[in-house]
Structures are given as C-alpha cells and as structure tokens.
C-alpha cells in the first residue's frame, strides 16, 4: 500500500475507512446482531466492531453455523440475518448455509472478506472466487471494487435480501476497500423504486375475482399454503386464518408453512406431502378447487406429478413468477405478496354476490372426517417401566410438557425422521416458531438455527429436536451456547441410526443397511458437560417426562439424550414416485413400498 489510507480518511471528514462505512450501513439498516468468524481479510471490520457498541457480534465456531444461526434469527424475527466471514475458507464454509437459505427463501446478507483488489485472480493467500462460487448459491451477489460503491451496495443488498421472494445475498469485500477511505451514502428512501428489481406485490383484481368465483363454486375445496405466507409476515398468517374461517374450507400447510394456520383449529388437516397426514393428502388428491398460497408444488408435496390432484382447478398465488407453472400447470395464476393476496381475497369474497353456503361443502367435510378417523398418526406406547421410548411419544410429550409451561416455544430441527416427527406431533399456533431446513435438508441446521433464534428471543424456550447423526454436524456450536449463556435445549431422538436413511434402505433397498448405523457415538451426557452444559439421558419410558421437565427447568444449555426405538419408521409415507392416494400408513403396508419402480427409486 502506498500513502497511508487512514491519513487520507482524516483529510476529508466525510470519508471514513471502508470498514466503518460497512458498520454504519449495517446500523442504518437496523442490524443489531451479526454472526461471524474472523480472519485476515476481514480484520478491518473486526477492528471497527471493537470500537463501537451498536452491533453485537456473535462468535460462532464454524462459518456454516453462522449462516444457519442467521437463518434462525431471520426466520424467528422476520428481519434480515447478517453474517460476517473471512475470505477463502471462511466463504467456502458458508456456502452450505447460503444454499440452504436460498432454497428456503430466507433473507440473509453475508459479508465475505476478499484479498485486496490488486491481488484478485493471482491465487493469493486465502483467495477464492467467492462471487463465482456463490453465484448459484445466492439470490444475488456483489464484489465491491470501488470505494464509492461500498455504501450503496450494502443498502442494495439488504433491499434485495428482504424484498420480493427473500433470499441470501453475498457482498465480497476486498481488504483494501475496507481500509481505504470511502464516502457514506444514506439508504434510499423507503419505497424508492429499484433500478432493475421490482417484484409485483399487488395482485391483479381480475385474477382475484376469478379465484373467488372458482372457490365459491367449489364442492371439494382445499387451501394449501406454504413458506410464502410466513415470508409475508405475521399479518399474512392472521389474514389466512381469517380467510379460512370465513370460507369454512379445510386448510393444510407444507413443512415450511407450519404455524401460518393454528394447528389446533378444527379446519386444519395437518401437514401434507411425503410424510403428511392421510386426510391432507387425500383431500389434495380428491379436491375440485385448490388454492395454493405461497407454496411451490415441491416434489415432496406433489408426489407423482402426472397423478397429482387430477380433478382440481388450481389457483396459485406466489410472489415469484418462476414458481408459477413450474411443476404444476394452474388455471388461475396470481402474482403478488401473500398478505396482499389474502386481503384482496377476503374483500372479494365478501363483495362477490354469488351465494356460498357451508352446506355445499358439508359432504366434503364428512368425507374428510372419514379420512381423519383413520388416525394416521396414532401409535402405541408401552407405558410399563423399562419399556422402550417411541420417538413419536417422546416428541408428543415434549410438545405437551412445553405447552404446559405457557412459555413462548421455538422449535428447530435437524434433518431426518426426528424432523418429520417434530412436524407431525408438535402443533404450532403461530408463525415464526418453527425453524427447519426444508428445501436443502441440511443436517446440522438445527443447533445453530436454535442459537440464532435464542439470541433474538432471550426469554423463549428454544429447542432443537435432533437426531444423533445430524447433531454431530454442527456440535461445535455448543461452545457458542456456553460463551453467550444461551439456554438452547438439544433434544436428541437417539435411535443409533441415520433413521431416515435406514428407513429408505429397509423399504426400497432390501434392508441392506449400508453405512447407516451411527457407530462409535459419543456419550452425549459427557459431551454436554465438556461444553459446560447439562447432560441428561432417558433410557426408558419412565424416565422420559422427568428428563423433559428437568431440561426445561434448567436455566442453561442442555443436551437431552433420549434413547428411542431403533427400528421405528416414519409414517404415513408416500413412497417416491407414488401418488397421494398410494400412501403407506404403517408397518403393515410396508410391502407396498417394495412395488416402487426404478423410476420411483431414482427420485430423492
């Protein structure tokens, strides 16, 4: 470096070192917390952080966890989650988290350090082509090459991350840009149009009227909603509840949409899809009008596409035009924000003179009640002391006991059977209390996500429902919990297997359990203790409730190792490549899975 950059900064009072400009922009964007890990390329930002107290930095133990923590923070608050990592390995470690946020539409701004501009392309120490690597992993990314652009890029990044369909945005910051003086510019006025990115928020009234016309004529309607309703903010969930109650129609949520409609409501059919309820999937299969709001017809939901809901007219409201008519062709596309769509639907429903009586969908409800009577989530737990704990029972008791406390409960999960059981047996009454990796299905998501949620909600009871295999993927974050005294509870359903893998091997690969046994597991109780946390274990049924209560009562972080049945499968299940009406309800029907063709087997 030639002339001292810092002296240049002091020469013009409007100019501040780039790192300070970065922090000022974060502050003006309302950022209170960032999750990060230092390294050479971002030392100027760490130096600036040291000298201020507006923004709190949470030091994670792995950059992937920084992104998941920011996701948990974002999903539980509706704010943008912010990440700070160094160049090279810091950035590459963050990639899994970025793709996770991309798949699940979570707003993230990730600042990555970069080698100084004059060294870019030279294979310099800890150089990686971060914008190249993260281009398909982000909604958008930037490499800041000129100090004049720095503040504007930061503001732009926040706008892109949170508007339209939310997603992760990377800003790659060469070290010289962080040191050299840069001018600061204020954020653009709220509502100022972006140069090129202008998502449509307000639905076309004609499409809304057409939707209402179809719905009023329906005899077998269903309202199927997803993560988009959560993305649209808590008001959208209220409006959804209002609309569902106004129409008297049944409602089902995707894995990502749980909490948008109260689980305890009699009009709720539970989750749909591969491990959804019998009633939800059968209703999807047999309906005559389907209203999809903010769900993306994911393959885990549709099953076999050519047999998906063959008798229905479909209405699809989504903020992203590329979600509409992507997998499933719909009759009425509605482009817009879920909250605005719902508000318009409610108004149009009331305005429309076409009579609609509950009587016209009464036979449909009777049919649904018949499906419900199958009680697809029922299981039997042997209550005699010494009996093995069923994982479903463990989750059910976790739900019931946490509900008794009356506390705000936020649940995250890892990926696998335990994730599905959590989705099936925990009822969510409100949005933003359920954090799970749906689209990417990232093992290792749950602990850091719970950590991020706990930072945002210090009073809440934040629980990671985990599997013994998944938890080891980001177990180092126990250190972060200890450092910041975050009372996150890790509730491990320890079946000593990668249960979801074992289940597929049992059902689809002749019971050849290739590499799916969790051998040489650590002693989770002592592992907890090594990380300054409390370790608990329930070996059999009589210990379960006590362990759950002790876990909740403990003021600090806990790992509860719940030893559960090793061979339990997660049902109902729509085997891959099958249709909604070809669901397997329980072990008695497992042989149906054997009929899965190779065509089905190629599906994930």
């Amino acid at each position: 470096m030639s002339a001292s950059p810092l002296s240049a900064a002091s020469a013009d009072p409007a100019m501040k070192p780039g790192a300070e400009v970065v922090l000022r922009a974060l502050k003006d964007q309302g950022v209170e917390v960032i999750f990060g890990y230092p390294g050479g390329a971002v030392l100027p930002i760490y130096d600036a952080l040291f000298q201020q107290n507006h923004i709190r930095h949470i030091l994670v133990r792995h950059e992937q966890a920084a992104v998941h923590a920011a996701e948990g923070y974002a999903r539980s608050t509706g704010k943008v989650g912010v990440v700070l990592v160094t160049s090279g390995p810091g950035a590459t470690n963050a990639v899994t988290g970025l793709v996770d946020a991309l798949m699940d539409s979570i707003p993230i701004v990730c600042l990555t350090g970069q080698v100084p501009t004059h060294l870019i392309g030279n294979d310099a120490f800890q150089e990686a082509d971060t914008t190249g690597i993260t281009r398909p992993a982000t909604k958008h990314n930037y490499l800041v090459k000129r100090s004049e652009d720095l503040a504007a890029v930061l503001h732009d990044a926040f706008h892109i991350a949170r508007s339209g369909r939310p997603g992760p945005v990377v800003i790659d910051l060469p070290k010289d840009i962080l040191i050299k003086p840069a001018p600061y510019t204020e954020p653009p006025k709220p509502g100022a149009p972006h140069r090129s990115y202008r998502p449509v928020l307000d639905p076309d009234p004609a499409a809304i009227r057409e939707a209402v016309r179809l719905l009023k004529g329906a005899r077998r309607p269903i309202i199927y909603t997803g993560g988009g309703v959560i993305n649209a903010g808590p008001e959208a969930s209220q409006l959804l509840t209002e609309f569902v109650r106004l129409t008297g129609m049944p409602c089902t949520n995707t894995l990502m949409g749980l909490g948008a409609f109260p689980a305890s409501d009699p009009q709720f059919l539970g989750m749909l899809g591969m491990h959804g309820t019998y009633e939800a999937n059968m209703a999807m299969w047999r309906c005559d009008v389907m209203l999809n709001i903010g769900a993306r017809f994911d393959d885990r939901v549709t099953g076999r596409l050519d047999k998906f809901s063959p008798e229905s007219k479909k209405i699809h409201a989504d903020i992203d035009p590329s979600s509409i008519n992507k997998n499933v062709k719909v009759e009425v596309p509605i482009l817009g924000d879920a909250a605005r769509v719902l508000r318009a639907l409610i108004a149009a429903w009331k305005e429309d003179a076409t009579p609609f009586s509950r009587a016209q969908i009464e036979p449909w409800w009777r049919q649904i009640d018949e499906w419900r009577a199958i009680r697809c989530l029922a299981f039997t737990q042997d209550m005699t002391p010494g009996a093995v704990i069923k994982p479903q029972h463990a989750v059910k008791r976790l739900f019931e006991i946490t509900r008794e406390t009356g506390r705000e409960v936020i649940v995250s999960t890892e990926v696998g059977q335990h994730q599905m059981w959590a989705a099936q047996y925990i009822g969510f009454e409100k949005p933003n209390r359920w954090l799970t990796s749906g689209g990417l299905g990232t093992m290792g998501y749950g602990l850091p996500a719970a950590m991020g949620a706990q930072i945002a909600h210090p009073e809440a009871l934040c629980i990671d429902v985990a599997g013994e295999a998944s938890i080891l993927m980001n177990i180092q974050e126990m250190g972060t919990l200890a450092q910041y005294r975050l009372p996150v509870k890790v509730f491990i359903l320890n079946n000593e297997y990668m249960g979801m893998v074992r289940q597929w091997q049992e059902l689809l690969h002749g019971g050849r359990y290739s590499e799916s046994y969790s051998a040489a597991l650590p002693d989770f109780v002592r592992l907890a203790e090594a990380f300054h946390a409390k370790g608990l274990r329930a070996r059999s049924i009589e210990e379960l409730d006590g362990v759950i209560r002790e876990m909740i009562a403990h003021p600090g972080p806990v790992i509860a190792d719940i030893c559960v049945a090793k061979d339990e499968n997660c049902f109902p299940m729509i085997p891959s490549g099958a249709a909604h009406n070809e669901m397997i309800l329980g072990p008695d029907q497992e042989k149906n899975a054997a009929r899965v063709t190779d065509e089905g087997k190629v599906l994930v």
Partner: protein
Amino acid sequence: MSGTDTRTATIAVLVENEAGVLARVIGLFSGRGYNIDSLTVAPVDAERRLSRITIVTSGTEMVIEQIKAQLDRLVPVHKVSDLTLEGPHLVRELALIKVIGRGEQRVEALRLADAFRARVVDATVESFVFEMTGDAEKIDAFLALMRPLGLAEVSRTGAVAIARGTRQIAP
C-alpha cells in the same frame, strides 16, 4: 402441461452493463439444463449502462415460460422480451467465412457469394473471406454450398434481433 411440443424462442434481455451479468445468465441456463442455441451480448446504452443479450433457445412452452421467468428474476435484468411470441421481428447474424481454393472452385465460390450477397472482405490468390449477414438459415445454406468449394473456417456472431415497426423494448 401443454404437451411435449417444443418451439424456438428468440429472447431479448436488457440488463445492467456490469461484471458478472453474463455469467449469471449462462449459469442459469447450464444450472437448470436449458438449451442455448445462440447467445450474443453487447452494450447498447452507455449513458444508462445497459447491455442487450439476445438468446435463441428451444423447449416446451412451459420450459420457455420458465426460462423467461427465471431470467426476469435475476436482479440486474431490466426487461425480458420473447420476440418470437410478441410478433414480427428481424433476426440477423453476421458471419465471416474463409474459403480456400484455386481455379474452377474459386470462381464458383465467388459466383455463389454474389448470389447470396456475401461481400468479399479479404482476398488472396488462393483464398477469400466473405462477410455475410442474414438469419441463421441463410448462413447455414451458404455454408453448405461452400463446403465442397474449400470452406476452411467460419466465425459467426450468433443472432441479434429486434421487433419490426414501432414496438420497442425499453427498461
């Protein structure tokens, strides 16, 4: 799904003239498995920092609609326009074609070039470079004729396109 019928689409995309924008577009096509029959790009408006990309692609109607929606959601994309769908339009490509030969073949090449309105832009005693504009079909036809006459090398720009009449694509 409107079946498996495929069509070709010539799509004009107005984008910010910034680093990485072409990589985003190409990455989108390769990442999602869409076809690129041709792709051209050049700045068209220095003042407003705009470039124009012309993509010729093919697929089922559903896939082409997906391609347009996916292009449109890229942040630096201002405008996506399906010229094929939107009405009459002109498609042009420029080719530089080197033909090496002597005697009869050389005379014949020159005669055909004249018929195709290909201009001679370079000549030696044993070679020509022809410059030709037209749609892809015209150039393909000319190349087919040149092949037996000593066609040695071709450089083509790929298609550029614009709507006929007063219709405009503005950001």
